[in-house]
């Protein structure tokens, strides 16, 4: 998973949780290690400058440069194994919360892509869009999550999520004519949840806003979607940088509140 950066397959709830937990612990440790190597690299960079300036210490500078290169290479290698934090902050708590509602002995089908969302692989066909000679939009659509499982009451729950990242690149020229590119990034995630409900177990009780209902054969289909905007900066505490588990749980609960058990 860490090498390929995606999970795909059928898992029992316990096995999936164990896998996600191991991945998360590994990712957390690697993230910590990457930060440590970066701090060491920065520290050694300043030491190199000091050693080059002070004549008596200049003789040792090749040794410090070697250390600097070593730390930088280590940082890059550790960073390469870094995964999308949604695995740690969304998938793991989501399945930890829903585990007791999943039907015993049923399997979870899951595809989760933990690669970075800005990649040429995810560039939309119409991207880049040229607004004028100085402004361009680059769009990346990453369908990173897809899964389904059966709940304890035989309802089939399916979910999918895709992340749309828009990068705005603006070219600016300074007074001296120097060209500078300013990049702004915005991300929106769309989560679609659907339920396949056996008609002999539930009936529609009352309509809840934002839920599509379709009846076909012996099943009722409920579908709901919501969008989640990522916070633009760390200073803005209104938005979490990760998909909120509570929003997904509340959407499922809204769907449940539309139902009534058949007596």
């Amino acid at each position: 998973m860490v090498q390929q950066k995606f999970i795909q397959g059928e898992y029992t709830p316990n096995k999936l949780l164990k896998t996600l937990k191991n991945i998360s612990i590994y990712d957390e440790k690697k993230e910590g290690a990457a930060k440590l190597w970066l701090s060491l690299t920065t520290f050694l960079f300043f030491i190199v400058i000091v050693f080059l300036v002070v004549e008596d210490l200049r003789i040792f500078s090749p040794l410090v440069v070697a250390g600097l290169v070593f730390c930088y290479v280590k940082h890059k290698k550790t960073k390469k194994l870094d995964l999308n934090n949604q695995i740690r902050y969304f998938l793991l708590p989501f399945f930890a919360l829903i585990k007791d509602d999943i039907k015993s002995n049923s399997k979870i089908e899951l595809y989760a892509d933990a690669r970075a969302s800005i990649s040429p692989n995810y560039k939309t066909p119409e991207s880049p869009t040229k607004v004028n000679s100085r402004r361009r939009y680059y769009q990346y659509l990453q369908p990173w999550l897809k899964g389904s499982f059966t709940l304890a009451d035989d309802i089939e729950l399916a979910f999918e999520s895709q992340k749309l990242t828009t990068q705005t690149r603006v070219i600016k020229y300074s007074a001296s004519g120097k060209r500078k590119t300013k990049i702004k990034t915005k991300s929106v995630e769309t989560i679609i949840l659907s339920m396949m409900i056996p008609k002999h177990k539930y009936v529609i009780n009352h309509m809840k806003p934002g839920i599509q209902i379709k009846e076909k054969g012996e099943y009722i289909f409920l579908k709901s979607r919501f969008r989640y905007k990522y916070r633009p900066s760390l200073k803005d505490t209104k938005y979490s940088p990760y998909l909120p588990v509570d929003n997904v749980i509340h959407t499922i609960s809204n769907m449940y509140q539309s139902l009534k058990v058949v007596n």
Partner: protein
Amino acid sequence: MDLCQVKTGIFIERNCQNPVDHHCYECGLGICENHTVVDNTSPFCHACYINNNPTDIEDDSLTHSNRDHHLWYSRRRLKIHRSSRIVPFTQAEHHAFDQPATAEHLLDNDADDFFDS
């Protein structure tokens, strides 16, 4: 053998299937090892412990080694039930699910319809 009396599940309420190891010091509920928090050498069930220590957990990461995952689950479950006013379907309500579907249940007499709320 008595079973733990703690309820689990967010949408579908179920009883914990583990054997009773302790009794809650405050409410006397029979609780298993997973649903016990020892506070000042006395065992408490998660509900009583959370009521007495109402600090919230905002961090969704479960990877911290010192975290009690069962307590984390109980806190989140309680928070979700309070904030979204979910009333989980009880086991009694779901008893009907154990009955096999009859031909009458599978008859599709309704016309196909599709509408947005």
